């Protein structure tokens, strides 16, 4: 398949990447841009581990072609630290013990950020539903929900 030149805006930075049109966004983020904070858990949209923000909305980057993301703002976990400061959701996850193996953490944090951007004071039920697209095998989700509610309280 012929490669093509594509411009992607990731975490506020513009990148020129040469890719095949069938490459998924997760593949391009990880392999071409070395943004390995985005994880690939299943490759078929089931586990949610590859979640990134596309124009502020959580999407599964394994079901998104990189070419579709042209002209959109892509935010990955690496883009959440600003001026050396952690995002409040990151801080809450750390302080509330919401991180165990950490493999789903980038997806969980980005999903929680998108929720709080849209709905700054969610109910616990809303927080639970918001992250229901991301599988975690370690935490039982309890402390993740707790962290999101704490971040919302700030």
């Amino acid at each position, binding site marked *: 398949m012929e490669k093509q030149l594509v411009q992607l805006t990731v975490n506020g930075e513009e990148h020129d990447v040469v890719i095949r049109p069938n490459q998924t966004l997760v593949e391009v983020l990880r392999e071409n841009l070395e943004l390995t904070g985005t*994880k690939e858990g299943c490759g078929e949209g089931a586990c949610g581990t590859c979640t990134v923000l596309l124009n502020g909305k959580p999407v599964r980057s394994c079901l998104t072609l990189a070419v579709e993301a042209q002209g959109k703002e892509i935010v990955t976990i690496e883009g959440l630290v600003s001026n050396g400061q952690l995002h409040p959701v990151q801080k809450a996850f750390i302080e509330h*013990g919401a991180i165990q193996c950490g493999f789903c953490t980038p997806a969980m944090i980005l999903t929680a950020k998108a929720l709080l951007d849209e709905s700054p004071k969610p109910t616990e039920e809303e927080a639970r539903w918001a992250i229901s697209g*991301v599988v975690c095998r370690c935490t039982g*989700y309890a402390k993740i929900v707790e962290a999101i509610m704490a971040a919302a309280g700030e």
Partner: protein
Amino acid sequence: MHGICQDRGSHHGRSRGVTERENSIMAEHTLVGKRVARIDSLGKATGQARYTADLTLPRMLYGKVLRSPHAHARILHIDTSKAEKLRGVRAIVAGKDTAGERWGVFRYTRDQQLLPVDKVRYIGEDVAAVAAEDEETAMEALELIEVEYEVLPAVFDPLEAMQEGAPRIHDHAENNINIHVPIEVGDVERGFRESYYVREDHFVNSEYTYCQAEPYAIVANYDLAGNLEVWMPNASPHTKAKALSNLLRMPLSKVKVRNVYTGGAFGGRSDIFPGEFIAALLSMKAGRPVRLVYTREESFTGVRQAHSMIVDLKTGVTRDGTFLANEIKVVMDGGAYSSTGPIATSVPFLVWEETYRLPNVRFNGYRVYTNKPIRGMYRCHGRAFLGGLGMQLDMIAEELGIDPVEMRLRNALKTGDTQATGSKIISCGLSEAIQQAAEKSGWQEKRGKLPYGKGIGIGANGMMVGFPMGIRGGSSAMIKFNEDGGATLISGVVDNGQGNDSMVVQVAADVLGLRMEDINLVSGDSEITPLDQGAYSQTAAFVSANAVKAAAIDAKEQILDIASDMLDAMVEELDIKEGQVFVKVRPERNVWLGKVIRTALLQDTPIMGRGSYIPRIDQKREWVSNPKGQHAGTFSFGAVVAEVEVDTETGQVRVTQVTGAHDCGFAINPMAVEGQLEGSVASGGVGATLLEEHYWDGGQMLNANMLEYKVPLSVDMPQITPIIVESVDPEGPFGAKEAGLWGSMNMFQAIGNAIYDAIGVWIKDFPITPDKVLKALEENKDS
């Protein structure tokens, strides 16, 4: 050196009472017992934590594995010539490129060639592999490899596999029996004769899978000097290195299993798998690094699953519900190879004897070969089995008119008891855990009193903290200091996500009067860090942290010894806080730790802390040949109360509330302990009891993907109330034992019993899916 429990003398010619030192340390915790943020969480929250598939080495190749489409077949010929000619292919390996060695966890279970030479025994077994410039080329090359098979008859059911005339999977295994563990204690027949009530039940449980968040992955890098470096999610770098060294016929010291973040293990990252062997072979052949990342499907079928089980239970009790006799038979589907076979086959019994007083028991465990993928340990073995026993206990309680909580308390092990096969209990909070879980959940007000469709049930467990593992059963640690007073801790401890790295730093910092951020950690590397059992058999806190504590105490003693001259005070009068060594009664008399470190260097007595711990177990105990004697250094205990709502129209069971108490000995970091409890209510609990199982067409797994293998999501989870019980173990560091297996050991029985309370039916077939609930209701109506 045995931890801090013996008077170790001194490197400086002075003998000290370590117990006294221990007491002074116990008296003033700055960190231990506190809810502290884990040291690994910053990297994980920011995407900086690197997992195996994130690693890239210069000139790295991409590996892919060709897998068997047959459940049982002889490999007649493998032709790789076409694949070799494909542009971008750099190496191809198959069975003929191996030394033909077989691996098994025990000498007597070495039955698996990780790239088989003669035949394949399950669908998905590794047959050949390619390393190429990119993954697409590697996949294309797989299609060009021609394998000629002679398909053999296969068998997929363990009971069929045991029949005369069944296809023979391994030449050495008569009736395909891989392992038989017989255990007999006391006079079982007499126990039954003297019983007031005897009951027999039959339980079954399907296979299920870890489904760790991280798919399996390996990076291997072989150099011309003969060093092999390997990165992979693993629970025990030393175990992996030993296996690779045997299989590749390389010196152990040349196999260097490196530390890398691991995205969950749950028992499924301990054994050796073909992936690392294949990646190593490819790297050796190509002379370049190779990365091999499993697809999710390969992670389901090509690593490990949990055993399915068929269980027959017979229990006899006195009129007041005291156990008099147990007879237990378990048949486990082991899949194609042994893996941890002898352990897997024994643990279902052990977790029962670790919970209750059993005067007369007979156990027969059979692990049977079938032409299915290989089974290993998953959040311990035999939970379904324990679930059955825990449900049968409730059935008996009902027959005798005894409350299930009371029935458990009457039989519960206590401190000072000896288990059926001879392990002494040195600390036990089982009764407290049962009582607290019952009390906090409102058991008295709810049991038998909730409206139809709602119910409450309890489960309880004991759990070995470690088991005989020979030289790999202990841990050691070192601490060195930098001239600025900061330290580096070197420990074999392994962290798969449960927080073991953070735990040992917390322990060392607490003892040394430093902040956690003052201590660097080097852990879990088979070349650099000392031998350790790994994140295996629940021993990281009890064994690894014990070794670290001993090393920290050793370093502290050396520091105080140097400082005593500098401050003109007795060692006993000194302590360290926030990097200052000071006189306890006159804190203004102090010296900066960095200065003490420098002074020690100039005096040619550099501060080097050293500690080790090996649990006091009977090293002659053996799983099959000698299952008696002290099995583990200590045991943890727990109880769970689950509340359910059953929709009798749809058969759907929803767990609404879980209240559980766990005797972890002592919670080094309560937040991390709670996290372990909560996590085990999910994957090993709600998931394994109600949702997770595999479907098969013969040897073909039909749901090797996350769309059809259903795991609990956030919205499936109950409210969880974790209760920490601290029995303060006399051996454990600060009294700590383990915290990982509380929910998962108890959820089967708690949910099964709660369903009975809700709708009056016992479901003895796990997982308890809606169809089984409806069928049970239907049968109940008919009867």
